[in-house]
């Protein structure tokens, strides 16, 4: 893996042939927290430039799977992953892969908005700076500007880039976190219930944003809201008790689920 291949944002091929190889692929992924197994043999393909939503009741393993895609699980003591997860054919758990490089290619937005207690500018500039993406101040200004613009936040913050990011509203903070995540030009963007701490208006703004970001990024989103999954995603995967029960096109899952458990969940009988 090298960072030269990262710059997919400028290429922006919107329409991808259906039979293109998946951007990321999980193959018999099992995750253990100590002795407890949280994920059982998950096989899931994540298509490029589309939104994949992971749904399921609490504790079903959808967040665990999401976090194993950029190895955020490594930070949890006693967490162990088996099976194979690939990013463009590279096994991301291979010893030759450095998590720093992986996380620059697979960015993440968390459930609770967590901007750094620094200025808005510094929040966005931090990732590009530590990865050496900007060659000079002009480059950095450009990256910060375009990231904030893509995150739909530029017009609201352009006059106060030096104010602390923690002073923004919840929805703005979450968009700042999205800007921070896309500033490193990742190929894949993971979102762990990005709207669960937000009000409906802020949620609508973020959902719209996700739809726009799809042009340039491959997005995986965990959500508790089935309406949200239906609105923003092209592909949906339903998890239950650590197993991948069903996956497919979003419209198929919501209108014509093949599995009874899926049907029970989307009609509100379990979960």
């Amino acid at each position: 893996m090298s960072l030269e291949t990262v710059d997919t944002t400028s290429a922006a091929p919107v329409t991808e042939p259906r039979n293109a190889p998946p951007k990321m692929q999980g193959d018999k992924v099992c995750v253990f927290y100590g002795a407890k197994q949280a994920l059982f043999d998950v096989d899931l393909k994540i298509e490029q430039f589309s939104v994949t939503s992971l749904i399921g009741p609490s504790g079903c393993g959808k967040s665990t799977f999401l976090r194993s895609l950029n190895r955020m699980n490594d930070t949890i003591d006693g967490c162990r992953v088996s099976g194979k997860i690939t990013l463009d054919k590279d096994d991301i758990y291979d010893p030759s892969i450095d998590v720093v490089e992986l996380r620059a290619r697979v960015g993440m937005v968390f459930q609770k908005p967590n901007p750094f207690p620094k200025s808005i500018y510094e929040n966005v500039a931090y990732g590009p700076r530590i990865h050496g993406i900007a060659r000079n101040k002009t480059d950095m200004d450009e990256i910060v500007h375009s990231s904030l613009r893509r995150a739909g936040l530029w017009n609201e913050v352009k006059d106060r880039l030096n104010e602390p990011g923690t002073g923004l509203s919840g929805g703005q903070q979450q968009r700042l976190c999205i800007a921070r995540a896309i500033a490193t030009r990742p190929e894949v963007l993971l979102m762990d219930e990005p709207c669960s701490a937000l009000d409906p208006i802020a949620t609508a703004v973020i959902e719209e944003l996700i739809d726009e970001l799809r042009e340039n990024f491959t997005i995986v989103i965990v959500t508790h809201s089935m309406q949200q999954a239906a609105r923003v995603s092209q592909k949906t995967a339903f998890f239950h008790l650590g197993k991948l029960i069903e996956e497919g096109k979003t419209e198929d899952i919501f209108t014509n689920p093949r599995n009874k458990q899926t049907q029970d969940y989307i009609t509100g009988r379990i979960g």
Partner: protein
Amino acid sequence: MTDAALPHSAVEADAPARRDFGLKRRHAAERRFRMYGIVAIFIGLGFLAILLVSIVSKGYTAFVQTAITVPVEFSADIIDKDNERATNPRVLVSANYPVIARNAVAKALSVSPDDKAAMREVAKFVSDGNRATLRQIVMDDPSVIGTTRNVTLLAAADIDSANKGQVDLAVPQDKRKVSDQQIAWLDQLKAEGAISTPFNWGLLTFGASSRPETSGLGVALAGSLYMMAIVLLCALPIGVAASIYLEEFAKKNRFTDFIEVNINNLAAVPSIVFGLLGLAVFINFFGLPRSAPIVGGLVLTLMTLPTIIIATRAALRSVPPSIRTAALGVGASKMQMVFDHVLPLATPGILTGTIIGLARALGETAPLLLIGMVAFVADAPSSPLSPATALPVQIYMWSNEAERAFVERTSGAIIVLLAFLAIMNIAAILLRRHFERRW
């Protein structure tokens, strides 16, 4: 299936009727508890007030010193009888300056130099410490020899006490250190306006001396300053590095648990044990000099380390995990996460812990006694390797002295020490206020 349809048992059915029983009792209990709290606070504050009042009332007089301003004749006969100062500068150093001071005061009191008994009284009236003052004047400007100029001389400690009203004149003359004659002279000089009580800079600059009026905290302050600098330079980096490693990098296993337990134990080890350790390791094994601030500083470093480590780990732990995941999420390495995000947020806590550790070290006496810092050191230490004492040790030594003037100096030194501790604690609070971030 819910159990809402179950019939109420007899106990449940009674509940509404019994509901507000005991309210009075509960309120009374709460009022009682608040009373206990207020009483406890007042007892604590009361003792603090007693302590402060007793120290300040005994010690505030140590900050002024009685001085006598008289015309002093720098007689060539006494300083340089054989007129050899051009060839032998040592003459000026070893001249009999106390006689000059004595004669000057005698002249001001119209006492004849031939009256041996009266001259003995005069000799006890002025401090022997004026030797240094007069010598300095002559060394700075030898042309003063043979002339007369006004000089402010230190009064002897007993006269100083009498001037401050600390001598009970109702006691018969032979049972007190100040004679009626001296009291009369004191009143005479006061009437002439020759007696003044300027601020006692000597208390902060002089070294150890057997004469109270020329003994001060200079050496102790220098020693304490060196030791604090050493503690800060050694304990802060070691403590912070150890805490960061333990908190952020080390795997949680039995070995790190063991280390943690031992750090907490170290914090509770009596300080005198650290003194013994310092004696055995730094002086006997490494051969560092006795009574030196470097050894004291290293011993206090060992003592302060656990405090700093515990405070730093608590500060690191209080940084919200969301900041860590955010940093890791954009691809920061663990070290970048710690140094770019976690450490800046933990800084106020670390600084507060460090200052409180330093304050504790500043007030520590027992380990310093064991490494020989309880010594009679007259000259200010030129480096951390030369002998010195420390503030609390100086207090301990003065408290063993018998003279009335040392009693007030002991309290005066305690006031100085408390002032330093107060400044450090206020600095800790201000730093915390200034750097504290809210999110």
